[in-house]
């Protein structure tokens, strides 16, 4: 008990030391003029630019745009993949006749469709959102199907033999198998969705953090550019932690290996 506590403390201290060292390297490199000052703004000017962003209305609206397309796109993709996935996962015949289509469409890079989305939707809300839906539906769909196909067939037969109601079968048999897989899919889709949102804004020019950084770069405003990039990284961490937290709440019995060390 105590030893795990001490281990945790040591771990936290080491991680903290890592952050401090990384920031120190920045300050020292800046002091020793190792880097061109104009392109590498100092830590303090980046920090003050970071704080100044929250007072700028254009930053706040860019942030709101990115987060809302991300949330709506992910929610629609989740609904689609639950609907299609539960059908494809529960019928062997449907799965066999459709896996080739999924395998064919899955590797198409969603960003390849940016030009098409621009033609269809301009720089409106549905341009980045449509791309997020197309890009994140595949990892979600694959994980829903894997979860449903992972239900123990013997348990399924038993539940049928004992005439469990559909609701009970769903609650005690299907959901416990689908949810862990779905949570993994959601984490992958979450960070992929953020990357697609930012790319669509950067290339397509719709309002959002990606476009914000591009504008700062073309205006040579490097301190705010660094600040917004750092901020986007923090959003990425927040999204990851959110899904980790949800995963621990919803499927506490499921121990996720991937990235467990970090």
């Amino acid at each position, binding site marked *: 008990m105590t030893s795990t506590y001490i281990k945790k403390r040591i771990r936290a201290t080491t*991680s903290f030391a*890592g952050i401090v060292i990384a920031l120190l390297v920045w300050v020292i490199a800046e002091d020793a003029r190792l880097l061109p000052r104009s392109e590498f703004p100092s830590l303090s000017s980046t920090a003050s630019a970071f704080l100044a962003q929250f007072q700028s209305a254009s930053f706040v609206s860019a942030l709101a745009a990115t987060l809302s397309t991300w949330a709506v796109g992910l929610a629609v993709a989740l609904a689609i993949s639950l609907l299609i996935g539960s059908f494809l996962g529960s019928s062997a015949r449907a799965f066999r006749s459709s896996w080739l289509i999924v395998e064919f469409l899955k590797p198409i890079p969603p960003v390849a469709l940016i030009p098409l989305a621009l033609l269809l939707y301009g720089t409106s809300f549905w341009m980045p959102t449509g791309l997020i839906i197309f890009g994140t539906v595949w990892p979600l769909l694959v994980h829903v199907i894997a979860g449903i196909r992972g239900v123990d067939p013997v348990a399924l037969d038993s539940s049928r033999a004992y005439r469990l109601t559909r609701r009970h079968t769903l609650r005690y048999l299907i959901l416990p198998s689908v949810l862990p897989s779905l949570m993994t899919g959601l984490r992958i889709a979450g960070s992929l969705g953020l990357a697609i949102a930012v790319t669509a804004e950067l*290339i397509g020019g719709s309002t959002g*953090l990606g476009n914000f950084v591009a504008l700062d770069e073309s205006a040579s405003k490097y301190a705010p550019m660094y600040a917004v990039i750092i901020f986007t990284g923090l959003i990425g961490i927040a*999204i990851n932690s959110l899904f980790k937290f949800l995963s621990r709440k919803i499927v506490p019995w499921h121990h996720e290996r*991937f990235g467990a*060390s*970090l």
Partner: protein
Amino acid sequence: MIRISARIANSLWLPALLMLLWLVVSAHSSSIYFPPLTNILSQFRKDWIFANIGKDVVPSVRNLLLGFILASISGVVLGLVIGLLPTLGKAVSPVIHFLRAIPPPILLPLAAVLLGLGTSMKVVMIAFGGVWPTLISTIDATLSVDPVVLDTARAYHIPLWTRLRRIVLPQASPRIAAGLRTSLQLCIFMVVVSEMFASKGGLGFFVLDAEQTFAIKQLWSGILMLGLLGIVANSAFSFFESRILRWYFMSQNK
């Protein structure tokens, strides 16, 4: 024989039907955005056999290969080092956590300032965008190598290089391969984005340019080509994976 052809028919009827549907429905399409499939296919022939191969496909494929190789090597090497030195791992984990959480495309403006707009910037950004899954699964896989085996090898004074080659890598390779597969997807993503951002060649540039000049048929033929690139890259990866990890897949099927 009959069973095999039945299985092929089982998995092919729906894709074939959908293609046919696309062909028939689009045949008399007058929509500017969705031209008839036959027109797209003839444009595809005009663009890619073999007129623009050298200008657009070759740079994309070359950048993908260079970036993916750079990402694989740095991910595996750094992952092994971090995995074998747990204290170092704890110290760098917040930095890694942060860097991989940044959506890589947003770094393109920064990379353009620091590295210019040439091929080297693209390759670095492709590698940076793709390295994280390989790095993390290598760290995880190295950390989960049986510690008793490692300690025993150390007690017998088996040199580090042999320990790596004979103990760590074989146990870690299936999971490293899983990480590499995800890395490949991200690298393809970054190839396209890097060519769309202030670039003058490559498939990403081709489709974006087609959109900006309102050349809808070229746009569709470029999207088809990009889809093809993704599918070919993934199949090539699966082919090499099944060769190199044959012992592993065979042990799983037992």
